[in-house]
């Protein structure tokens, strides 16, 4: 029995976290990413691999519903916690392993779920009639913008229809990326996400480390040289080039590869304030058209390459924006 309790102790020294993030709650999200990175914890790709569901920021009703669905998908033992700001992050997470160890099974009734129908068919772009699946992308996916849900119709893994829904934007939502330092850090955050979706995790982590150093008031020149080196490696990588070149070219912004290069170049030059990109509402407007006919992996890359911050939507969206 001692062996079993030792095993259970060891099991939860490094829990995996699944984050539900409210738009604009970027501060605590970054604190969370930093803590997990420094302590060797991981962010889970899926509910099946998560020990804890962490709600970050103030969740409105739709986002609470999302958290509710996910909470019931986490295998046990599991812990649910919510964090309002970055101050309490370290403390709350440090207590997590002990909370998981002291978890005891309760007589939770087995859940009843509504039985969905089998997939129906719809015409595809080549004039065939094929099975179609409606799949929500977001709001909880690795490297995905907080508060965005892109509902897509897929035939195979080709997106035939997409619709934007916004979740979690309330009257109190404020964008986090304001001021010069944060604007530079934002570029690195966006680069980290895009590189993460592209599967270049080592480089993605490097961007996060430099981002956190910038935000912690690190000296600009050191970070700038580091970013410059990183930017060169990103630009020269043939694999990454093959993946991103030609994806979702937008007037004035270039394709996904150029956008990534530009973000890093801006940080390296330490001048990000000069031109703000198009407002997020405009990007969300064109998103359904841009992803039409694209493969799922490409849709993920396109969304990451647009650096969407839903918190910048000025008016709260009741019912969301919809596009056909």
């Amino acid at each position: 029995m001692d062996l079993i309790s030792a095993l259970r102790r060891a099991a939860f020294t490094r829990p995996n976290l699944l984050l539900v993030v409210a738009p604009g709650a970027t501060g605590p999200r970054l604190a969370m990413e930093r803590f997990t990175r420094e302590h060797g914890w991981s962010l889970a790709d899926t509910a099946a691999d998560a020990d804890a569901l962490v709600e970050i920021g103030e969740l409105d009703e739709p986002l609470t519903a999302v958290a509710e669905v996910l909470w019931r998908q986490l295998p046990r033992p599991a812990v649910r916690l919510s964090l309002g700001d970055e101050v309490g992050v370290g403390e709350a997470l440090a207590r997590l392993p002990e909370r998981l160890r002291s978890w005891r099974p309760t007589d939770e009734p087995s859940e009843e779920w509504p039985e969905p129908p089998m997939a129906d068919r719809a015409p595809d772009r080549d004039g065939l009639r094929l099975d179609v699946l409606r799949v929500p992308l977001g709001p909880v996916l690795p490297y995905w913008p907080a508060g965005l849900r892109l509902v897509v119709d897929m035939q195979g893994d080709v997106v035939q229809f997409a619709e934007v829904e916004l979740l979690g934007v309330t009257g109190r939502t404020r964008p986090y990326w304001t001021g010069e330092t944060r604007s530079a850090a934002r570029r690195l955050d966006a680069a980290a996400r895009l590189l993460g979706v592209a599967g270049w995790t080592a480089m993605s982590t490097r961007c996060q480390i430099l981002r956190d150093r910038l935000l912690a008031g690190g000296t600009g020149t050191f970070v700038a040289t580091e970013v410059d080196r990183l930017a060169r490696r990103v630009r020269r990588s043939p694999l990454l080039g093959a993946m991103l070149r030609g994806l979702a070219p937008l007037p004035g912004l270039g394709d996904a590869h150029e956008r990534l290069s530009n973000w890093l170049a801006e940080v390296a030059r330490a001048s990000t304030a000069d031109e703000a990109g198009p407002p997020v509402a405009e990007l969300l407007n064109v998103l359904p058209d841009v992803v039409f006919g694209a493969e799922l992996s490409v849709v993920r890359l396109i969304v990451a390459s647009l650096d969407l911050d839903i918190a910048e939507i000025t008016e709260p969206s009741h019912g969301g924006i919809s596009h056909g």
Partner: protein
Amino acid sequence: MGWYVPVMALAALGLALVGATYAIGLLVTVQRRPLVTPPFLAGGLPREHAVSRFHVRWYVVTLLFLAFDMEMVFMYPWAVVVAEVGVEAVVEMFTFLAVLLAGVVYVWREGGLRWT
């Protein structure tokens, strides 16, 4: 046939190892009853079952693959008789492969290797 005794023994051992892993899991887990849940959909619920006829846009390539795969049946025995049969074995096999490669070039020109 004596070869296949250790092979079968290893297969049985492999299955036993998998079984032992599940048995240990059953012993040390904090909750034996598996969780039954809808699939992970980024926080949403499924509108239909995911098992469906999947649109494989690379089906043209599967035909090309089959042609070559049949060729592989000849390739292995061929490999061990080249020294014996001599020049004509190499000439014949690579003439055959050249014909198949012409198929690859055709499919490529028709855009069969691209699909988005």
